[in-house]
């Protein structure tokens, strides 16, 4: 029999959930509702008139092959950012966990990049890879490689992925490191006595026990790659060259705030909302089944 804490009356429970509900309503449901409503119109920028077009904005978007290409770009970008931020973080956490002395120092140093805002991180990386004055670009040219992310789309994508993943490694590291500490020593020691070497113990015992953390980080990192990498892309490539780094959320910005096309921009927000909703459902339905709590 499950034990349940119950309240007598309605007032207290309502009062307790009210702040959360109000915040969600004001900062999420109201703007999201507005976006859905606006996506049915083509308004002029000043809000003086607007024309009802039904699903016309969606039709316009989905018939645009550059918008469809942006889905692929987003998929590639968010997969790469997620992988590039989780795998090194896990590796670093495992290494730091093995240290007996001085792990505190490494831990502190590894957390630092998280304090750097995405836009600032973008500028830092851009400065290192600047085709003319960048330190890294200069070394590459000494090695005979002509770095030019301004025209080469693979290099541009690589650069924004690295710049986006860099600060994120710290965040993932923190979670992995904490999770590693909670893996019971006795299980690992038993395996060691049975003769399992380090990496075997890691793959058969530690990794499955880390799966809830890894799953949480997967969801969070995908959402990060979708929405919060805007600053990095804006400062490094502005979506170029051509449209190589124009992810969905960047297009929402450029159509809405550069192009003043609020109808199309709202329709894109709605599509983005649906995509992220679907992704999260898929993650919970299929990936979560493989997670052991």
């Amino acid at each position: 029999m499950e034990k349940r804490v119950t309240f007598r009356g309605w007032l207290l429970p309502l009062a307790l959930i009210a702040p959360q509900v109000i915040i969600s309503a004001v900062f999420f449901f109201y703007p999201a509702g507005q976006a859905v409503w606006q996506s049915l119109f083509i308004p002029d920028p000043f809000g003086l008139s607007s024309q009802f077009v039904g699903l016309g904005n969606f039709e316009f978007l989905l018939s645009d092959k550059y918008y469809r290409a942006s889905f692929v770009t987003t998929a590639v970008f968010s997969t790469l950012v997620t992988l590039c931020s989780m795998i090194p973080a896990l590796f670093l956490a495992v290494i730091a966990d093995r240290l007996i002395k001085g792990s505190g120092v490494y831990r502190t140093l590894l957390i630092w990049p998280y304090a750097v805002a995405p836009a600032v991180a973008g500028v830092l990386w851009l400065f290192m890879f600047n085709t003319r004055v960048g330190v890294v670009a200069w070394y590459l040219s000494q090695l005979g490689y002509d770095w030019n992310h301004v025209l080469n789309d693979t290099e541009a994508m690589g650069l924004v992925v690295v710049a986006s993943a860099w600060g994120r490694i710290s965040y993932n590291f923190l979670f992995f490191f904490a999770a590693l500490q909670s893996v019971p020593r006795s299980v690992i020691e038993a395996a060691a006595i049975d003769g399992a070497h380090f990496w075997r113990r890691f793959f058969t015992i530690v990794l499955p026990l880390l799966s809830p953390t890894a799953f949480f980080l997967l969801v969070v990192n995908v959402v990060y790659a979708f929405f919060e990498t805007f600053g990095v892309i804006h400062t490094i490539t502005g979506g170029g060259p051509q449209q190589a780094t124009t992810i969905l959320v960047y297009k929402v910005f450029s159509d809405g705030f550069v192009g003043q096309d609020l109808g199309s921009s709202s329709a894109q927000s709605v599509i983005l909302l649906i995509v992220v909703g679907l992704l999260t459902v898929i993650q919970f339905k299929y990936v979560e089944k493989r997670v052991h709590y």
Partner: protein
Amino acid sequence: MKKNFLGALAVTTALSPVAAMAQTEVQFWHAFTGRLGELVKAQVEEFNASQDEFVVVESHKGNYSETLNAGIAAFRAGEQPQILMVFEVGTATMMSAEGAIRPVYEVMAESGASFDPDAYIGAVKGYYTTTDGDMLSLPFNSSTPVLWVNRDAFEAAGVDPDTDLSTWEKVGDVLEQLKAGGEECPLVTAWQSWIHLENMSAYHDVPFASQDNGFAGLDTELMLNGPAQVAHLTAMGDWAKDGKFIYTGRRNEGGANFRSGECALFTESSAGYAGIKAEAEFDFDVRPLPYWEAVTSEPQNTIIGGASLWVMEGHDPEEYKGVGEFLSFLSSSDVQSAWHQNTGYLPITAEAGDATRAAGFYDENPGTDIAVIQMTAKEPTANSKGLRLGSFDQIRGIIDEELEAVWAGEKTAQEAMDSAKERGDALLRRFESANQ
């Protein structure tokens, strides 16, 4: 608590100058920082000191796009300034916003401030004037593209720095010689769409868009895939492939390369003057923008870039009177000549240009009058009056993308421009239906 608040209020009120209470305030939102920001501030201070009826309050609202956005958002919230700076690309957006803007010719007529539309330089005024000749916004900072030459780099590569660079055919030969002489960055550009398509079209008197480049109606279509434009971009693409033209980015990134002495030739706005003069540690000079002899024997005029001042709707008549006085002050010959000489922007009135010449500025700073001559040598035609296209900021983005495909050798100039036309036209149709 309340007592403290009232006390504080009393103190601040007592400290503020009494005269300010009686003055009418005029808000002026602009996009200038650094040296330009200081110069704008000085203009405003001079105006405020010159009379005691009005006080202009200037505030910086970010870059051009951000300033326009701030103005639009403020209008939606009913908090709009009296004067808003809008870059030339936003002109069609502002023009279509009937009910949000008050045309400058009306403001000037109502305020009774001195205003003579004929005093303004035709090629500058034309951009912001209706086809009926009514001035909608006041030209503020206008520049036009010219060719900057690093004379030291020419000499290092063994090319005569005084060689004729008037046509692209000759520039092509010079690029070959520079490359052969060991120059790694023969040519670099800023604002590629503005210089190599928009101005290129006007300069050769070919249309950039139908309906007189959008002046005659919203049902306009891009015509930038014509033979003249394609020939130019094909040549540029070939130069990019041979390492004679170095692409650095969509905005004015190339300025850093030129100012550091790395590049020999640079196509950039005449307003690049202040920066180049301050930073360049080499001998430089200014030449008119080259033209293709194969297309025209004599170039038309180039068009402007920059921003104009729009007056927003929804304020008191007294405030509009202040706006009128301030705009009239900005157009005065003294203010304009100082602005022109300090920044490299064009003088907006012919009188200011003449005053600058009479003061001997052009003799002391050779080449600073090239932009003025290039703009005013010929009476503008329907193709060289300017551009008035909706969603133009986005269309420029599309053009940038397509040009990058040409520089990377992934598309021919014809393919890229056909695609730019198709994509740009879709946006023009959307703008048309939003503003019917």
